[in-house]
């Protein structure tokens, strides 16, 4: 090439050769294109998903197969035979039907069709003219049970009676039925399910097949939601504790800023904070993985609530505890870590657990900004099934965490109350304990008696 550049005459010769080659190749391409138009060109071969949840085609279960082809130039089509892959079976009421289209206009195409487990044949009364589109829909065809890529083969007959081989169709991916598919398909045939689903409310909210299908389908979403809070909440604890210390600082300015942090975060909706973080940070050129950003927003939000919980907990510790520690020569930090915090933790466990529950439920808000979590999974299932059942199953998944925790909180509060009773009156142990409610009732009774007098 360097030599060519030195001799300008030689370079122009080469240029003209290159142009010639380009033109020639263009012609070849166009010719090739027109040769493709000869014969039937298959446009599409698809099967409709027969899975209750998901977009897969399950083998062995009836589905609808759609096959489309365009009639080539200078050609007419009288008959088409499509051969099914080996192992195909027919469902009840299996049939096939051809539609002829001129662009978007549907043409009248009288026809006769036959179908068997091996093949289907459509014969047109009048040959289909060139350039028209033939769509053959085959109903209730069960593709082979084994998973794999399946193609339709076959042949067609033109108006002259000449039979030609069809190009092989595009492959249809078939998976073998999962346990869930097997169960839901079995349920489809059960009379009680039919009866159940005949009640609109039950069908829409508690569809048995969708309950079965949703449980595994939402499991990953449940894990992702749980992980959001299981990482976010522990992250919020040290931040919250630090903020609570700042809230109790001797310096007014520090108290002031800590108060702003707490009040702004607690005084605005988490939903808004999520929007600000998710749509605001990209403006600053900061891009964080949405799942991680979700965790961070949850942690920051929860830290403000925890700060107040911790502060209340620390301030509920009697002054005498601080004084006793001080009188023993302990530094404020030693007092905090060895005397105050261990007692605070016990006291704040119920409220902090409530906060955990709130935060767990609030992970659902992240669905609004596209974080893949349980709500998002349920939402897409509802969209694809047009049924509310996935939301109900989702509710079950949330309750799986929140109900036991609520129970634990109640138990813990009972224990704490009992411990407090003991410490104030150690000799009362044998007396039956009055619950708070009972106590309030008895106080009311006494008051009522007094008023009577």
């Amino acid at each position, binding site marked *: 090439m360097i030599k060519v550049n030195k001799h300008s005459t030689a370079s122009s010769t080469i240029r003209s050769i290159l142009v010639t080659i380009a033109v020639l190749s263009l012609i070849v391409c166009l010719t090739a294109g027109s040769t493709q138009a000869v014969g039937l060109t298959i446009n599409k071969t698809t099967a409709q998903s027969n899975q209750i949840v998901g977009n897969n085609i399950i083998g062995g279960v009836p589905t609808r197969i759609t096959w489309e082809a365009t009639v080539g130039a200078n050609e007419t089509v009288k008959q088409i035979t499509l051969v099914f892959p080996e192992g195909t079976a027919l469902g009840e009421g299996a049939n096939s039907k051809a539609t002829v289209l001129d662009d978007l206009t549907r043409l009248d195409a009288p026809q006769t069709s036959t179908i068997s487990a091996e093949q289907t044949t459509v014969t047109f009364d009048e040959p289909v003219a060139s350039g028209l589109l033939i769509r053959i829909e085959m109903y209730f065809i069960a593709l082979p049970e084994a998973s794999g890529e399946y193609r339709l083969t076959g042949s067609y007959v033109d108006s002259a009676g000449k039979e030609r081989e069809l190009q092989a169709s595009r492959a249809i991916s078939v998976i073998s039925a999962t346990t869930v598919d097997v169960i839901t398909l079995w349920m489809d045939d059960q009379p009680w399910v039919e009866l159940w689903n005949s009640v609109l409310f039950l069908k829409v909210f508690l569809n048995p097949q969708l309950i079965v299908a949703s449980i595994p389908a939402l499991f990953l979403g449940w894990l992702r939601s749980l992980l959001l809070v299981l990482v976010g909440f522990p992250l919020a604890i040290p931040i919250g504790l630090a903020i609570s210390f700042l809230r109790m600082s001797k310096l007014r300015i520090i108290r002031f800023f800590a108060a702003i942090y707490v009040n702004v975060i607690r005084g605005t909706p988490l939903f808004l904070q999520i929007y600000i973080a998710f749509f605001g940070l990209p403006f600053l050129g900061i891009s964080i993985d949405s799942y991680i950003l979700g965790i961070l927003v949850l942690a920051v939000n929860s830290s403000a609530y925890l700060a107040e919980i911790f502060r209340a907990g620390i301030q509920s510790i009697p002054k005498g505890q601080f004084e006793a520690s001080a*009188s*023993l*020569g*302990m530094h404020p930090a030693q007092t905090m870590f060895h005397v105050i915090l261990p007692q605070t933790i*016990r006291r704040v466990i119920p409220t902090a657990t409530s906060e955990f529950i709130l935060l767990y439920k609030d992970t659902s808000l992240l669905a609004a900004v596209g974080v893949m979590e349980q709500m998002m999974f349920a939402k897409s299932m509802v969209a694809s099934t047009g049924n509310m059942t996935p939301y109900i199953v989702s509710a079950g998944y949330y309750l799986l965490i929140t109900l036991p925790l609520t129970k634990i909180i109640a138990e813990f509060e009972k224990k704490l109350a009992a411990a407090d009773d003991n*410490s104030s009156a150690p000799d009362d142990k044998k007396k039956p304990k009055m619950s708070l409610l009972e106590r309030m009732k008895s106080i009311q009774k006494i008051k009522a008696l007094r008023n009577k007098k």
Partner: protein
Amino acid sequence: MTSMSSLQHTNEQPVVRIIDLHKYFGSLEVLKGVDLEVSRGEVVTIMGPSGSGKSTLLRCINLLEKPTSGQVWFDDICITDPKTNINKLREHVGMVFQSFNLFPHLSAKGNIMLALKKVLKRSQEEAEQIALDQLAKVGLSDRADYRPSQLSGGQQQRVAIARALAMDPQVMLFDEATSALDPELVRGVLDVMRELAKGGMTMIVVTHEMGFARDVADRAVFMDEGVIVEQGCPEALFDNPQHERTRDFLGHII
């Protein structure tokens, strides 16, 4: 002011010296110029109606309350000097509170061991040994592993005393140590305090227990409205009070 009676202990320098102590809570003057000296080994009881400033005075000695003006000396250290390391000083001044203030999350033993380990940097074994020894002294060896909530008030207070004593203090302050106790539990605590006094501990005791003061105290101090009204040996003070206010008060509590 009868400062004569304290002369019997002046053969050495007083261990606690309070000079012209004033304390305000806001605009309320709780201590209006208090002077008090306590010699080594002396047991001083402070009495007075509530609001007289006796507890505040006691709490000023280990700086749980910061005096507004005046000085508190411990040996030759001025503890009201801001440069003094107050935590260091508090190791040598034990305090027992009316409300016990045991750490509820720790066992009796754990209560005693905490400051030993964290402040005096004793090892776990050493601290445990000291704790058990101290518990034995207050008669609670069998309660070492009990939580405060499992102990009676009297037992809790004895643990609190053991906790303070474990730090090997030079002065013990008692702030109405028996006031929160049921009468039948007071005795055990007072017995411990008597033993302590016999052992030569310097004690400043805010109490209403006349019997205890008579038996144990070297000196009784009567305070009212933020000043020391009268002080002297307990017999003289109780049987022959010089001031109207003292007589009034004693007339009320006997």
